[in-house]
């Protein structure tokens, strides 16, 4: 039987390179921790924040159900092991709180392809091909294996996944797991927009075809928008033009090439939403 899936947002890091608490970094008025919990919540049976003992009463973290590190283990493995110990029958979708470009599609893709027969299901890093341990599903059986790993004096969760016959998946959105460790990372992530960037309004071009052209009453328009991604832009335009097609029935193109729905949009981009096609 497949174990129930709980969610764990890791917010126990010390943020030494950032110089301030990464969980509290705000985009669009919402902290990274709140954003991660909001992404995870609808996808899992229960969602928790992983904290160190001295963080329990931090107002940001106290707003959510917590799992407190047992102590004696360094790094993110401490949070994962504490969660497994607290709910040994559950599988855990573990997510770091410093992933400002993480999107629901990336989590849904991982969950949909989860293999409960393995110890874990994870993404292959878009940078080096190694497992990404901090956006991964750990099955109940991985608890004992992680214990043995830690008992051997090791604590790197990436190495744990490498030696654990983890199911590795390619990322649907290669930028989704880019984390922010330094103020420069943060500035770059904000500039790229992503799902969480504080996006200024800028002008985009939108072209319409077929049913969408008729419903919009025009072939094209210039749109001044804060929408960060095609997904957000389509929601905004649907509100304006009352499009009848749901986004799951469409594809999207940016600058005349098929695009991901979570690609960051830049000023001057030309966006086309593609209704179901019917050539021939």
């Amino acid at each position, binding site marked *: 039987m497949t174990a129930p899936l709980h969610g764990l947002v890791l917010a126990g890091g010390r943020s030494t390179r950032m110089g301030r608490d990464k969980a509290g970094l705000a985009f669009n008025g919402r902290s990274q921790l709140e954003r991660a919990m909001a992404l995870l919540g609808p996808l899992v049976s229960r969602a928790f924040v992983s904290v160190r003992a001295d963080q329990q009463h931090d107002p940001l973290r106290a707003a959510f159900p917590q799992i407190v590190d047992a102590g004696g283990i360094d790094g993110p493995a401490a949070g994962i092991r504490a969660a497994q110990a607290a709910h040994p029958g559950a599988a855990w979708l573990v997510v770091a709180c410093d992933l400002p470009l993480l999107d629901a599609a990336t989590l849904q893709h991982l969950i949909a392809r989860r293999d409960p027969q393995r110890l874990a299901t994870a993404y292959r890093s878009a940078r080096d091909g190694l497992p990404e341990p901090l956006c991964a599903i750990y099955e109940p059986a991985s608890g004992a294996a992680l214990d043995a790993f830690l008992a051997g004096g090791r604590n790197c969760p990436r190495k744990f996944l490498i030696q654990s016959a983890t199911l590795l998946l390619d990322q649907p959105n290669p930028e989704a797991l880019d984390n922010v460790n330094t103020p420069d990372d943060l500035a770059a992530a904000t500039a790229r927009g992503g799902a969480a960037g504080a996006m200024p309004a800028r002008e985009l071009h939108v072209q319409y*075809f077929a049913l969408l052209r008729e419903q919009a009453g025009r072939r094209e328009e210039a749109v001044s928008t804060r929408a960060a991604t095609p997904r957000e832009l389509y929601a905004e335009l649907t509100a304006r033009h009352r499009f009848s097609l749901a986004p799951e029935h469409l594809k999207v193109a940016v600058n005349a090439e098929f695009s991901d729905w979570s690609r960051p949009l830049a000023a001057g981009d030309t966006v086309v939403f593609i209704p179901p096609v019917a050539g021939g």
Partner: protein
Amino acid sequence: MSAFRFSHAPIDAAPLREELLDTHCGGFTAFEGWVRDHNEGQPVTRLEYEAFEALGVREGERIMQEARERFGVTRALCVHRLGDLGLKEVAVWVGVAAAHRDEAFKACRYIIDEVKHRVPIWKKEHYLSGDSGWVNCERCATHAHDHDHHGHDHAGAPHV
């Protein structure tokens, strides 16, 4: 000139076939899609085709390249009509020339199937009743909650 093209004027097959003639080829096969007078039980009087041409040519060209590589055919050409079409007009023409007939048949079939699924082309049917509808779109619009059960053409484009 691109192996995948759009045409706003009626398609004349003779010069297209001429383009494919090749001394290395022993077989030629063509497929034509015609405008017929009915669809799903409704009498059809005419069609409108519309395309996102900039992307359509790119995606169409990728399909032609795939067909040449996959089946080892020498020459292939596809022209899709746009605009208003009456009954019996040619909506799409595919021609393939190859050393032998087998790869020509297979490549021709591959091209038309992939074009229908992947190239951003839309077809509006006008019915005898006076109604009209965008093929594959109207069902999505009216049954948007029911997206597991209708087979509209989104399966083929892994370019996201």
